[in-house]
């Protein structure tokens, strides 16, 4: 009798079996969605990095020509260093005689070539009157040509390099005195109107100085605010209003902070324009809410039993917070801070408002020197007409991304140090 019953109605274990199969399928599906969801952003990221990377690597190299340079006393006393380069070019191409052709010939080399010679001479004054073979940077058009970014097959009028120049270049190539070399200048010099002389160091320093100010201001302030609000403040209407406002501040467009900085720091307190000091202050305003919110979440995540244990031992509130709560919350606070700092690093709008958008050749050395920042440098270069700047734009983006990765690595290391999982 039980057999007949079993046939008509599925047994309990059969039902569970049927349900299990469904559950497994659902779990598998869910896992697939998850993998797909991860794959999408990772592939976007990879595509972005590959595209920017392939565009930007070119800027890490620069075309140099080897010239035979005579440190002629005449030019040196006249301080006409580019004149030495020109003389050398005339020697290399003796049959160029027309004025216009000569002018073209001189344009093969970068105007930075003379600076390089000057720097050489400064280090070693015994060069006076001597002749040396020196690798000197060529102009951006030649650089583009050598990197294959200018098509020789185009009609002469359609390309930036004329037929005559092509002949000269071919002559240099034939003599094996033209070469792509590592572009140290890109990492050591500030901005320039000449793409081949423009470097990222100024903007990099500007960003570091601004971020330093931002960190020094926002981390202690943010952590103190979070600790006070979370641990000490009475829960009343006032603290509620403050809380709501902080949450709102996190959503305020960053340019508003720039306007605030302009109105208060520059116009009222008369702080210097374009300075990393003010930039950092503005960025600190922007990162503060992020840090406060993350820090409060980290404080709230500390198990109440730890607090009770400390209070039960007779620890005062400050001791409880300093000895137990803060160390446990620190990793979370640091994570929030790094997120805030990373945002600040990529931020340009507020810096525009306080004048950190100027064309600045000198590398800033302290907090009040005029400076710009990496994202703004990227914007400025992207906006420049010279072809060679597009390469540099991509390279600057790579530097920015590298900077971000470095910051995150430091964060991970610092966090590991604080995070003692027991």
């Amino acid at each position, binding site marked *: 009798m039980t057999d007949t019953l079993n046939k008509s109605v599925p047994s309990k274990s059969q039902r569970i079996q049927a349900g299990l199969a469904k559950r497994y399928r659902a779990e598998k599906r869910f896992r697939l969605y998850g993998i797909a969801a991860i794959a999408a952003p990772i592939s976007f990221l990879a595509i972005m990095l590959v595209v920017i990377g392939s565009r930007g690597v070119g800027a890490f190299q620069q075309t140099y020509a080897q010239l035979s340079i005579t440190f002629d006393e005449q030019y040196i006393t006249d301080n006409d260093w580019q004149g030495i380069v020109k003389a050398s070019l005339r020697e290399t191409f003796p049959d160029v005689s027309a004025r216009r052709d000569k002018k073209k010939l001189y344009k093969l080399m970068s105007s930075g070539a003379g600076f390089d010679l000057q720097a050489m001479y400064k280090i070693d004054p015994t060069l006076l009157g001597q002749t040396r073979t020196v690798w000197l940077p060529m102009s951006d058009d030649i650089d583009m040509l050598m990197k294959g970014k200018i098509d020789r097959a185009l009609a002469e009028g359609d390309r930036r390099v004329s037929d005559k120049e092509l002949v000269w270049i071919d002559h240099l190539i034939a003599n094996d005195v033209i070469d792509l070399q590592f572009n140290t200048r890109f990492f050591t010099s500030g901005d320039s109107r000449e793409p081949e002389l423009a470097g990222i160091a100024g903007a990099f320093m500007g960003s570091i100085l601004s971020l330093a100010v931002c960190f020094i201001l926002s981390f202690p302030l943010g952590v103190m605010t979070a600790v006070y609000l979370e641990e000490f403040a009475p*829960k009343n209407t006032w603290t509620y209003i403050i809380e709501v406002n902080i949450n709102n501040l996190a959503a305020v467009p960053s340019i508003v902070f720039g306007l605030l900085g302009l109105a208060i720091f520059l116009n009222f307190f008369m702080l210097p324009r374009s300075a990393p000091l003010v930039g950092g202050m503005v960025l600190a305003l922007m990162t503060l809410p992020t840090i406060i919110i993350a820090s409060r979440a980290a404080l709230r995540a500390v*198990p109440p*039993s*730890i*607090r*009770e*244990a*400390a*209070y*039960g*031992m*007779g*620890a*005062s509130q400050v*001791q409880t917070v300093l*000895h*137990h709560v803060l160390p*446990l919350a620190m990793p979370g606070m640091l994570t929030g801070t790094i997120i805030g700092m990373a945002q600040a690093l990529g931020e340009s709008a507020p810096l525009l408002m306080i004048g950190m958008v100027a064309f600045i050749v000198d590398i800033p050395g302290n907090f009040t020197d005029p400076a710009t920042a990496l994202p703004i440098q990227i914007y400025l270069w992207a906006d420049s007409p010279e072809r060679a700047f597009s390469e540099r734009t991509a390279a600057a983006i790579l530097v920015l991304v590298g900077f971000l990765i470095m910051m995150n690595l430091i964060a991970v290391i610092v966090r590991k140090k604080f995070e*003692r999982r*027991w």
Partner: protein
Amino acid sequence: MEISIHTEVPTTARIDEQTLSQPHKVSAQGVNVYYGDKQALKNINLDIASNMVTALIGPSGCGKSTFLRCLNRMNDVVDGCRVEGLITLDGEDIYGRGVDVVHLRARVGMVFQKPNPFPKSIYDNVAYGPRIHGLAADRGALDDMVLHSLERAGLIDEVRDRLDAPGTGLSGGQQQRLCIARAIAVEPEVILMDEPCSALDPIATAKIEELIDDLKQNFTIIMVTHSMQQAARVSQKTAFFHLGELVEQGDTTDIFTKPEDERTQAYVTGRIG
């Protein structure tokens, strides 16, 4: 007269003799506790004798923990909690003006229901109290305090060679004994224990009961327990709470053998709760 009742139980009698000569260690008079609008304790009058174990028993939610937490003012940090009435420690109002909770909690230690060691080393856990209260003159004295406390808590043999290991890496029972060691390291006068054995196996429970029995030589112990057997085994006095009221209090033997109140009778024989 009271002594004659206890002639069959000589150990208790000896301690009673002591307590008769001195006032109660802790005394609660007309204590009302409110969580917001809700009254959790109603007019509690309870005296706790020193150097004894007092068990607080009663069904879940009757206010045992609440009462315990009043005695070292742990309720101060609970939002919306209000304590009325008089609670004295050695005759001094612990809620009075000028009473410092930090000092109070150094005198009235607490062991929680769930073991809650700090996420620090075993050594640091025990050393924490002496450190914050500045009890140890130097490192050597601190070492002695830590080792002595661990020994009294019956943990020393298990942790002697790993004092630097994290306290949270111990087993549940070991963690609870670590918490006891941490509490007794500051030499409190009263130790409050909120179901210290609720998460422990019978062997660990037996160890802790033994420990409590030892500790009462030097400390006054107030302990919440859900186990009637445990209350009977380790306590000399028992107080029965029900729905926020203190229904009955007295010697443990009396409460278990001849309770006066019907509810107590029902509870200790397992009919309610």
